[in-house]
Each structure stands twice: as C-alpha cells, then as structure tokens.
C-alpha cells in the first residue's frame, strides 16, 4: 500500500468538517488522555486526594469530629477532586495552551471556540468520573458507609464542577501562564487547608467558620458532607453560594477571557 501526496491533484481542495459531535468527543477524549498522561496533573487529581483519604481516615475520631472519620473525609476528598480538575488542572492547562497558541489554532479548526469549551467541560467531567470511581473504591475499602442519595451527590458534584470551571477559566484566561500556575496551585493548597474543602467548616475557629461557609470550597465540601455523611437532601444554602460564585466568575470570564 503506497499512498502518496505527490501525484497531481493529491492536494486538491476538498474541504469539509467531520460531524460536530464527533469532533467535540475526539477533543474531549484527547483532553482526558493528556491529563491522565501528565505526571503533575496525576499528582494533583489522584495521588494527593488518595493519600489524604487514606491518611485522614486514620486520624483520631476526636480530631475529625466523627466516630467514623472515613465517612466525613471521603466526601471532602471528592470535593477536592472536583477542585483539582475543574479549577487547578483546567486553569493551568488553559494558561499554557494560551501561551503556546493552542487555543488560537484549535479555534481556527472545525472544532471552533465553542466546541473547544464544550470539549474541555466534557473532558473535565470524564476525568472526574475516573477520580470518583477510584476515590469511592478506596473509601469503600476503608469502610466508608455513604448516606443520602447518589443522585443528589452527583448533582452537587456537577454544580461544583460548573462553579470551579468558571473560576478556573477566569484565572487561566486572564493571567500569564506562570502566574496561573502559581495561583492555581496556591489556591488549591489554601482551599485544602483553610477553605473547608476536606476539613468540615465547624472544625475551624468560630470567627473563620462564617467565612468558610461563604467560600466556594467550603460550600462544596459542606454540601457533599451533608448529603453523603448526614443523608440530607438538597443542600440549598451551599448550592446558592456555589451559584453566586459560579455566575460571577462566569460573567467575568466571558468578558475578560483571552484566547492568546
């Protein structure tokens, strides 16, 4: 089989786009593969959450505030997984793809800018699906007994993803690549330690508790804990906090996002 491009007419124009849905899916899978092959991303999205899950579920009950630490820790680690992928990972990727002209070039292909954003969102959801399966499996091995409705938990995860995606795109779409890298990783750590992501809001000093409740990290962590650890229904207050952050960041990102 010898295909060549040299015969006359081999390069003759024959424009046409592949079906739109297929293009977006190909791009989403490309993004998924890129994340799973990137060592730093794996550290952020899987290694750190899993180490925290195992480590914190062995902490004394008095420190975690529950007889069954894993029941409190697992929902927080799921919240951390969302932040690591939708926010930190996406912001860093977007920052560098802007710098290297990747967004600019892909926007000029049949994928287009809208297609690229849809594919990125789909890619984030696919990575999160991998994270949720692995984290849940390890947590169950550690004796996790999730309460509440899975459907509500998934809904909260999706709302959290939307909020943190908006924040990630706002960050990655405006700062320089190095700035994004520093801020995205820094905020990941801050939210992890002081933002109520893995540590329940009520474990912080009283003055800080009310701040944590209004942070998107605290809202997502507490929302997942209220559903999965306490079996509560839809956590409206936390959803409202997430919605406000998401809408604000989304509107701002739509105005400030730079493609190069």
């Amino acid at each position, binding site marked *: 089989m010898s*295909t*060549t*491009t*040299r015969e*006359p*007419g*081999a*390069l*003759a*124009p*024959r*424009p*046409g*786009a*592949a079906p739109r849905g*297929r*293009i977006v899916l*190909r791009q989403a899978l*490309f993004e998924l593969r*890129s994340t799973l*092959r*990137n060592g730093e991303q794996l550290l952020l999205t899987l290694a750190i959450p899993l180490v925290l899950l195992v480590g914190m579920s062995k902490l004394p009950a008095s420190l975690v505030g529950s007889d069954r630490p894993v029941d409190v820790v697992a929902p927080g680690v799921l919240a951390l997984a969302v932040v690591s992928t939708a926010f930190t990972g996406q912001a860093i990727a977007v920052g*560098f*793809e802007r*710098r*290297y*002209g*990747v967004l*600019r*070039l892909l*926007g*000029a*292909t*049949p*994928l*287009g800018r809208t297609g690229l954003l849809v594919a990125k969102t789909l890619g984030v959801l696919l990575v999160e699906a991998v994270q949720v399966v692995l984290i849940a499996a390890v947590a169950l091995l550690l004796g996790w007994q999730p309460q509440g409705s899975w459907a509500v938990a998934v809904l909260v995860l999706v709302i959290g993803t939307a909020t943190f995606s908006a924040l990630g795109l706002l960050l990655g779409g405006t700062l320089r690549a190095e700035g994004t890298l520093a801020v995205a990783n820094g905020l990941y750590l801050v939210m992890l330690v002081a933002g109520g992501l893995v540590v329940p809001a009520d474990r912080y000093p009283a003055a800080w508790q009310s701040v944590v409740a209004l942070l998107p990290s605290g809202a997502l962590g507490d929302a997942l804990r209220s559903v999965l650890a306490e079996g509560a229904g839809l956590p409206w207050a936390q959803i409202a906090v997430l919605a406000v952050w998401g809408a604000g960041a989304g509107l701002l990102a739509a105005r400030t996002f730079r*493609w190069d």
Partner: protein
Amino acid sequence: MTSPDARARTGAAVVVEDLRLAYGATQALDGLAFEVPAGSVTAVLGPNGAGKTSTVEICEGYRRPDSGRVEVLGLDPARDAARLRERVGVMLQSGGIYASGRALPVLRHLASFYAHPLDVDALAERLGLTTVRATYRRMSGGEKQRLALACAVVGRPELVFLDEPSAGMDPQARLVAWELVEQLRSDGASVVLTTHLLDEAERLADHVVLVDRGRAVLAGSPAELTGGGEALRFRAGPGLPIGELLPSLPEGSQALEESPGSYVVEAPVGAELLAAVSAWCAQHGVAPADLTTRRRSLEDVFLEVTGRGMRP
C-alpha cells in the same frame, strides 16, 4: 449580500480594502488594501513590524480591524467564521501545538476534525515527520514548523494562510515546504504567505504585496516588480558603434559606452538580448570580455521602497 459565488465573480480568494488597526498609539495597519487572486500563491512581504501578522490574523477572523473591509472566499471572516473554519488552513508564526504533543498523534487528531483529510502517514512521510519522536516542546525549530505546516494542510483547505512558514527551517526542509506550497497551487488551492525572506517570495509567489508601515506600497508579480533596471555589460576595444544595437532592441532600451572600452546595454535581459549582442560582436569581430548581466532582484525593490536604514 455576499453570495458564495462572489469569489468566482471577482476571481479573488481574499479581498482587503482600506484596513485600519491601531494598538494603542501604534497604527499597525493604515489603509492596507490588496487582493489575493484565487489559485495563486500570494506573498505578503515586508520588514518586521510592517503589519503582516495583523493582516493575516484579520483574514483568519481572529482579530477585528478598526475599520475596513475583508472578504475571504466571498465571506466575512469575523461573521462567517464557523463556515470558513473547514475551508481555511492556518499555520501560526509559532506554536499552536500542545507542548507535550507528539507529531503523528497531533496530526492524526487534527485530521479527525475533517471529513476528507489527507492521508496522515503520507503527509508525515513527505514532511519528514515520521521519525520525529520528540514532544513538540523538544522539537527543533524546523520540526515544529513542518508539523505546523502539516496541520495547516491536512484538512484539504481551499485557502491556506502561512505566517513565516520557513522560519527556522534548514535548507532541505525549506525545499520540502516550498514543493508542498507549489503543489497546493497547481492542485488548485490558494495560498497566502507572509515572509520577510525575499528568495522565498521570489521563488514561490505569483503575486507579491509589499507592505510597509501598514500600507501596501507595491503589488504585482515578481517579474513586474523586478522589471526595469536590467542591464548587460561587457568590455571590448574603445570607440565601437554600440548604438547600432538599438534597432534590434525593445523600445526604451539604451546602449552606450560608459567609459572607453566599457559598454552597457540597458534592456530586458534574456536570450534575445544575448543573441543581439553576440551578432553585433561577430559583425565587428569583437570578443567581449567580462560580460555580466544584472537583473533587479526583489531585494533591490524591497530596499528601494522600504529604505536601507535599520528600523528603530
């Protein structure tokens, strides 16, 4: 209203009229106007900072001008971006590819966006990408450029924008890239390339637009632009009747003895001029010495128009 047939009607793949664009206090484009004939290779030539990249970015629909009109394949690149994306191939001046991407997977991925892509293996083979194992980040400048060129043409576009395509390429790679551009044209695609390399424009372009300070200062085929100023010189004994040559030369030619024994014939340099001079020499029993011809190169034109001094 612009119909898809506008291109057939005007015979132009790209029409740019009175384009203006300012970045802050800098007027990058200042009334730029030119046309890209369909099926041609058009070189947008100019010194650094002349506005070449801004022009291409506007044609790609990536940037909007402050004022002016652009028509690409009969469409408005800003408003009809979605319809143009599958018909237009783009090679950026640098980058555009995932830093961690490898040549073949990236090319295959982009090819999957199109309904009738070129055969990826054949294209990669032709551009010497088959054996490139490095990630984009670690590729040589020439490898990066060849991959970007492959990505620009893999979707079989009608129109290709190449921004400084051979920057960083070694001579072999340039030749491969040039052959690809020449075949694109002979196979019916239109190509717009920006360059500051005069030999590249001279070799590839049917049509050259010389841009300086945001304006098109000259446009035409390389032959038209370099026409005039051609001359043939030789030395022979002094006092020969060189004026006898004039009747056999095109109108407007000149033939003189510049200094004793040193003759110059100003006329289009070609076989006919050489034949006429040879016949005249034979007639007078003269053996010409130090015979040289001079053609204006694009470089001469470029420097005449844009000035020889360094730009601040």
